[in-house]
């Protein structure tokens, strides 16, 4: 049996990749993907904890998180399209009308 720490290490790695992606990527689509990666790392942790302790709450949690991630992605992509119509770019360095 794979020990729980293995799952958690993969989870931490995914989370770190996602966080770094959000912080350094300049492209909105990549940024959205990084956020999804972070949510999935949390899902992995939830499933691992749930399986290792034999409680089913975590499984239910993961399904609802997947739904929420889908809703968030839908809103996010719609917003990216609106933004592209207005500004003709999705590079986040260009969105600097609002500052200070």
């Amino acid at each position: 049996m794979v020990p729980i720490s293995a799952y958690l290490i993969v989870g931490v790695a995914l989370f770190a990749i996602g966080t770094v992606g959000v912080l350094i990527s300049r492209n909105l689509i990549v940024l959205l993907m990084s956020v999804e990666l972070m949510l999935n790392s949390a899902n992995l942790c939830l499933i691992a904890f749930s399986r290792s302790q034999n409680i089913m709450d975590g499984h239910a949690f993961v399904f609802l998180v997947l739904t929420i991630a889908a809703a968030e992605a839908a809103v996010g992509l719609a917003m990216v399209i609106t933004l592209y119509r207005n500004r003709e770019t999705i590079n986040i360095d260009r969105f600097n009308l609002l500052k200070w």
Partner: protein
Amino acid sequence: MDFQLPPYDLKMMLPEIFLFLWALVVFTFDLLTNRKKETAIGYLTLVGILITGVLLAFTGYGRGFGNMFFNDPMARFFKIIFLGAAFMAVGSSFGILKQRIRNHRGEYFGLILLSTVGMMFLASSQELLSLYIGLELTTIPLFVLAAFYKDDKLSVEAGIKYFIVGAFSSALLLYGISFLYGMSGTTDIVQMKINLAITHLTFTNIGMTLVIAVVTMLAGIGYKLGLPPFHQWVPDVYEGSPTPVAAFLSIGSKAAGLVAFAKIFVNGLSAFHGPEMLPNDWGQLVALMAILAMVLGNTVAIWQTNIKRMLGYSSIAQAGYIMIGMVTMNVYGLSSVAFYMFAYMFANMGAFAIVTVFEDKTGSTQIASYRGLSKSAPGLSLTLAIFLLSLAGIPPLAGFLAKYYVFAAAVEKANSADSASWLYWLVGVGLITTVFSLYYYANIIKQMYFSREDSPYKIPVSAPAMMVIAICLIGVILFGVWPEPILQFAGDIPASFGFIAR
């Protein structure tokens, strides 16, 4: 297999269910009338919120759906705040109905209602799963609302900034929740409190995991509340988004974040608070964030030239004052937070309502364009001055009492134990920065009253906006001189968190 559903009680959920259905009614009404009815849909939304308020009054305390849905005093108190914020945001958006959101009125009001439903579920949840879903149902409609002027570059930019920050923070929060779940083996907050304490006493090495959970969850909720160092989105989003939406964000979204914070930290992690828990202590981290919020919010606001942006920085500072009440883990702490939020709702919604009315007429949100307004619109200037003075905390307005109770709670705690004497520092910073805050609030009053120029603007106020401003004015003055009923109500809150008066 003998399988039994846990006892459920739909009656407890009646206000939420009604409001959700009413949001659908608002959507369909707009489509069925071919998007022609301009003000009818706004009044329809207002009526829905009022009926929900009445239903809330008739829904008693209790629990339903196993332990997933609680109607405790805290839930009811904050539901009143959410409904009030939604009511006033809807009431002050009648001005933008005609021009700016011409083709999407149903969606606009429907999304405000759906977001309110999310906040109400959040306030009633006693459990990490429903808490997370409530928080998401609150914020996802708000992303759309912030970007609601589709052709306005500023609004769309505000929307995308809010979206990135919101999605990132909810991912952080979820990661923290997953660790909390892993350590305690349950999603029920009260059970979690017990399990965590037992685990902590048996194994002393849960420290590191708990630190990860606490830090990621603090970052996640800190983003929602706009606490430094996670505050950069607040002024941008307030400036760019439609003004009523900014008002709704500043009260509704902030109160939702506060409820989430209270449930996870003040209730669930209450054992891990105070200097004796040092590596696992969240109290001093939050205190540090509160100090940063008060100093940064109040000083940067001084240089703002845009009134919405200034109110954004002011809301960062107010979040700092509220967090003083949160880290005060005693009977007075939570009730002072609730009262603060209640008083802040009237003052802030009122100020934003006047800014909305002014923007509808003049199209400007610059502070300079308020010059000489007292001559052309004396009533409006006077009410705006009253709201700003309440935000600054001048007696006899409600904002003064709110600040007083928060500081008094902290001083009481600091007096009671030596280990809590660091709270004196918090109160000291709070008192000094309150003086700073007077500068930028009074600056607007100065522009309105003591400017030699005459304002060219005559500001017409529509009936719903007038009603909103009147409600806020009454609230700010009435609860400044007669706070007892609210205080009594707010005084019931700490008992459901296990704080009992000595």
